[in-house]
């Protein structure tokens, strides 16, 4: 078995080298976010500050506009999209799972493809006019509705595997005992699919939290802008960014996403459930 041992040692060494290269490629572009916020003279270099300081964060917190964008506007947008996507996707995937719908997997697949086609700036042209005609330009509601419409198909796709994986016997028992369909959903089925609802909710929140294109097209007044656009308040009149403040603001803006990732990873493991079928 000598040949076998040589082969495993070589493959282990290869894996180590591969893991090192991949870690470097994915970590190096992010290092700046860990050093610059704590340096009072940050430039674009990654350099551990000799005397780490929180002065940048103090300066960021004095920018009322940017702070309101982050702690108010972003929470409204993220929260609104999260509630709508999670609730509607849960209802829809549950309905799809528990009703006899012919060709249901194909339908969901087509829906995903269709939503991937009608997306991005191409979709923003007619969507802008729609929101304009509804009188919802420069409102959070307009942004929340458009983002929800874009995320729903994928949300249903993610939920579907959760809903399909829970056994039906409890639900059947509840119906036999005389519960109405909606009572049964609320009291029996919903508690069972709750982990899935949480994952979809967090996924929707993170998407809305980072969004740039949709709010920048649909919102007008500066006081409504979310954090992704409020970065421009750290630019000088000449249009160059104040890097120390930008990095500190970027750091604050990223923390909630990191926390949510850790929660999901710890509670459920961050992975795709069931595998995506073709």
């Amino acid at each position, binding site marked *: 078995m000598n040949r076998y041992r040589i082969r495993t040692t070589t493959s282990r060494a290869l894996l180590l080298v591969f893991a090192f290269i991949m870690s470097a490629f*994915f970590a190096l572009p992010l290092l700046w976010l860990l050093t610059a916020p704590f340096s009072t003279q940050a430039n674009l270099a990654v350099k551990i500050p000799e005397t780490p300081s929180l002065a940048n964060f103090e300066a960021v917190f004095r920018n009322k506009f940017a702070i309101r964008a982050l702690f108010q506007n972003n929470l409204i947008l993220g929260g609104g999209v999260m509630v709508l996507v999670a609730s509607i996707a849960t209802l829809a995937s549950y309905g799809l799972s528990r009703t006899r719908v012919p060709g249901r997997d194909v339908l969901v697949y087509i829906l995903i493809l269709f939503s991937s086609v009608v997306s991005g700036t191409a979709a923003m042209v007619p969507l802008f006019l729609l929101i304009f005609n509804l009188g919802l330009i420069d409102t959070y509601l307009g942004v929340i509705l458009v983002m929800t419409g874009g995320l729903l198909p994928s949300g249903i796709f993610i939920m579907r595997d959760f809903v399909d994986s829970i056994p039906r016997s409890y639900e059947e028992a509840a119906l036999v005992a005389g519960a109405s369909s909606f009572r049964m959903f609320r009291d029996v089925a919903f508690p069972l699919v709750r982990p899935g609802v949480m994952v979809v909710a967090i996924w929707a929140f993170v998407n809305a939290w980072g969004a740039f294109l949709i709010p920048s097209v649909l919102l007008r007044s500066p006081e409504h802008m979310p954090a992704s656009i409020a970065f421009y308040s750290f630019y000088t009149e000449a249009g160059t960014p104040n890097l120390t403040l930008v990095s500190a603001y970027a750091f604050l803006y990223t923390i909630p996403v990191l926390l949510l990732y850790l929660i999901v990873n710890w509670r459920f493991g961050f992975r795709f459930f069931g595998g995506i079928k073709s």
Partner: protein
Amino acid sequence: MERRAIFSAKVGFLFLAPALAFVAVFLLYPFVRVFLLSFTNQTLLGTTAPNPEWVGFDNYRRLFDFDRWMRLGEFGSALKITTQFVIGSALIGQVGLGLLIAWAFYRKKGVLREAVYTLVILAWIIPETVVAFTWVAFLDRDFGTLNALLDAVGLGRPDWLFKHPLESIILFNSWRGAAFSMLLFSSALETIPPSYIETAEVAGANAWQKFRDIFFPLLRGHILTDLILITLWTFNVFTPFLLTGGGPARRTELVSIYTYRTAFHGQHEFGKGGAIAVVMMLINFALALIYLSLIRRRRVHG
């Protein structure tokens, strides 16, 4: 497995109704509306804002004006740049890298896998404005980490965002989106029965033979699904705008950025923007159909 129905069609429809309403208003309606829009001279401001006129194929003629359409900042140029971007960052970058990572850590557990997976996922979930800033820093000619490393091994300090802007956004987008393919393939790999691999190993198959004869045929459906989604998403992605603004000199102006500049800047030409959107959606549909027919062919022969 036969699924038993718990609800009647009527109750099932009530559960589906909110989702159907959203799909109708925010996906189907815009899709139809954009076709009509593309035949008018609608703008945001000025006289054509309240009363757009029907202009027939004028917008399309302006897009396909072959005397100038390959110039930087024109439609043909944007299509060419987008094609290079999709091939480089979607097909090779994201799908290739995702498959490679998932395969390398197949049936492996431990710190190494956790570390790599976490880093790849972080690149995917951190807000796009933030990663745009960190990449501007990473690629900076004088201070950037990338050039610090290249300089240390004697490769000089190229000015990435000015001299090689397209390569820069391709590298950036591969980095940004590899996580989706990696996660999809790693959950797909788990569905392969371990006995297949063990049998192949006993028979002395090497890594490439295992990939070619076991993984590839069994995962073909997953690979094609991943290819469709990643291709469409990359075709429509707007994030590179935050890195380069489409420049320098429109050399990274993807079709998504060209649409944005046409419809939401300057003259706000919605009619022309609509025509671009129609062409983009038709290309996307054609790509989706090609991939779908490849999947079906497998079913027929498989």
